[in-house]
Structure formats: structure tokens, C-alpha cells
């Protein structure tokens, strides 16, 4: 697992049924592109988060394939509809096989 990988997500705690809510996510990760060289001239191998998936109560919101052109500490903002109270599950997949997850509950009134 890459060092110091820390997911952050911002989801409103409450919403009304069918309301459009904005979600922001940020995860600390170097996103080593595979294009850089170290001081000895050797290529630093690619090591990125290659996929990011957001589900709500088992249904998909977005599924993103990331390439090395995504900046260090990948940030995403997108919009979701919540039909009922439940849980957002956020999953980041690392090139090295690590999987980072975060969950946030939302109450629909």
C-alpha cells in the first residue's frame, strides 16, 4: 500500500428525496505517472489510483477510470440523487492492488 493514503469525502448529512446533492472527494496519493525519472536517470515506475467507484445502497453513481494525467491527490466533484436514506460507499483502486474505502450515511427526510 502506498504511504499515507487518506480519503476525504464531503456529503451532506441530510437531503430531501430526489434532491440533487453535490459530492466532493479527495484522496492523498502521489499518482506517480511513469513519465518521470529519478536522479540516476531511471524511469520511476507508474503507481496510480486507476479506478474510483461510488455506489449508494448498492446502486452506482459514478465509475471513473483514472489515467496518469490525473493530478496528485485526485479530486472529484459530481452529483447524485438519493431516493432514500442510506449509505454512500466510495472505493479507490490502486495499481499496487490496494483498495481504499470510505462510507458516508445520509438521511432523507
Amino acid at each position: 500500500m502506498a504511504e499515507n493514503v487518506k480519503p476525504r469525502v464531503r456529503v451532506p448529512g441530510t437531503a430531501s428525496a430526489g434532491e440533487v446533492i453535490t459530492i466532493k472527494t479527495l484522496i492523498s496519493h502521489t499518482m506517480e505517472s511513469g513519465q518521470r525519472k529519478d536522479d540516476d536517470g531511471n524511469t520511476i515506475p507508474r503507481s496510480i489510483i486507476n479506478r474510483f467507484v461510488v455506489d449508494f445502497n448498492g446502486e452506482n453513481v459514478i465509475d471513473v477510470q483514472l489515467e496518469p494525467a490525473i493530478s496528485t491527490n485526485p479530486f472529484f466533484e459530481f452529483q447524485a440523487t438519493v431516493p432514500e436514506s442510506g449509505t454512500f460507499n466510495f472505493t479507490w483502486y490502486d495499481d499496487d492492488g490496494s483498495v481504499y474505502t470510505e462510507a458516508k450515511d445520509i438521511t432523507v427526510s
Partner: protein
Amino acid sequence: MKKLAVAAVLSVSVAAPSVADETANLVLNGETQITVRADAPAHVDGLSEIISGWVFRSDETQALQMDDFDNPGMIFVDEARDTWNEASGEAGESCASCHGEPESMAGVRPVYPKWNEEAGEVRTLAMQINDCRETRMEAEPWGYTSGAMANMEALISSVSRGMTINVAIDGPVAATYAAGEELYYTRTGQLELSCASCHEQNYGNYIRADHLSQGHINGFPVYRLKNAKLNTVHARFKGCVRDTRAETFSPGSPEFVALELYVASRGNGLSVEGPSVRN
């Protein structure tokens, strides 16, 4: 002739980044008012108004600092919160053991560097953090510009955001202040540039495509888009001096401590912004 050479560098104006509305005001998270313009302190002869580096950045870069979630520097504040609570060193103490919540540090960042009576020296925040680590925690000191140090400085700064920088310049620090001022106006390197050449006489102009700021350090540590990490004051000083094509002083050296005190005091009246976002 030296002046002409400098002018040749500085007068080159290229397609510049879209400069933000220079009258823009900075409010963090819709609630914390940041003072980005103020009357220059009386001891700064070369400026009538002091302006935060935030004002000189593009709309997009400015926006990154306006919300803690958008500010990538806050990732490192979160990391430092974990470190704050972790016991480290032989004494088995954490920062929290003595200081409680990091919020108890509110008011610390605005007055550093400052005189430490017991030690009989001027201390930067980094020096104070390492003194805590070595003396209280019996832990290894952190590298002066290391990631761990930058993160902790960011945490301690973050809880003072919006508070007014108020660094003392007289009394026991007078000699350090004078040494820092001397350095600020001393031309160094093959390019023969002083801090003042760019940040006092030419702020607002472009050096190649860089929009020169007044060089205040109220926003440190700074998350730079360039290297996507937090940057410390002394690492930035080192970069600036190196860019004049000079041998630089070392981070943590008496020279840079003096320069930090002087430069910090030039920003007396601006708000603590760290961790800020710059290009």
C-alpha cells in the same frame, strides 16, 4: 548597470496568466474573513500597502484556497492531526498530552518567530516544535523542512487562520530583526538580486510568466501546485536565493531565522492563511 540588468529580466512581459480580480476578498468556507490587504506596518519603508500573495494568483488558484475541502493542503493538516495524538519518543508523550486539542494552538502562529526567554534565542515555529520533540517527548527532531514538520506547521497555522500576524520586532529580537532586514536588502548571486528587487520594487510585475507577489509568508506552509506538496518558509527562501544563482543559507540557519522574523514582520496586519495554495 546592475539596475539595467535587473530591468531586462523584469520588464519582459509575456502572455500572462489571467490575473484574478485584484479587488477580490478572501473568505474561507464562507465564514473566516482573511485580511488580504492592509496598511503597511510603520517599520516597512518600501511599501505603503501590504498585499497577500493570494491576490496575485489566478482565479482558479484563488478558488482552491476558499474551501477547506478544495484546499489540498488540508490533507496534510489531517495527517498532522493523527500525528498530534500519537505518542512518540522515550517519554511516551504526544503533542496532545500537554496541549490537548490542536485548537489550543490558536494564536501561536501569528506571533512567530518570537523570543524565547528561557532559551535566550529567537525561535521559529519549527524550532519550537523540535524543542518539544527533543525536550518533552525525548523524540528525534524532525528535519527542518521535512514533510512531518511542514504538516505540523500547517496544523498549527490552520487553527489561527484569520488571526492577524503580529510579530514583535523590538526588545530582545531587535538584533535579529536588524540582521534579517540587512539580508532582505542584500543582493546575492550572479543575478545580483535581493529579496527587495522582486518583492518590494517589482511586485505586480512579471518575471517570465510568474506574477511577482510581495513575498509575505503569512500563507506558509504553502501547498504549491508545482510540486503538489506543502512547502516550508525556509525551503522557499532557499529556492529564491538559489534562483539568484547564489550559494544559499541552510534551512534552520541563523541567517534564515533572522530573515524569517523580518519577512514575517513585513506582513504584520495580514491574516494567517496557512496552509495556503499557490502556483
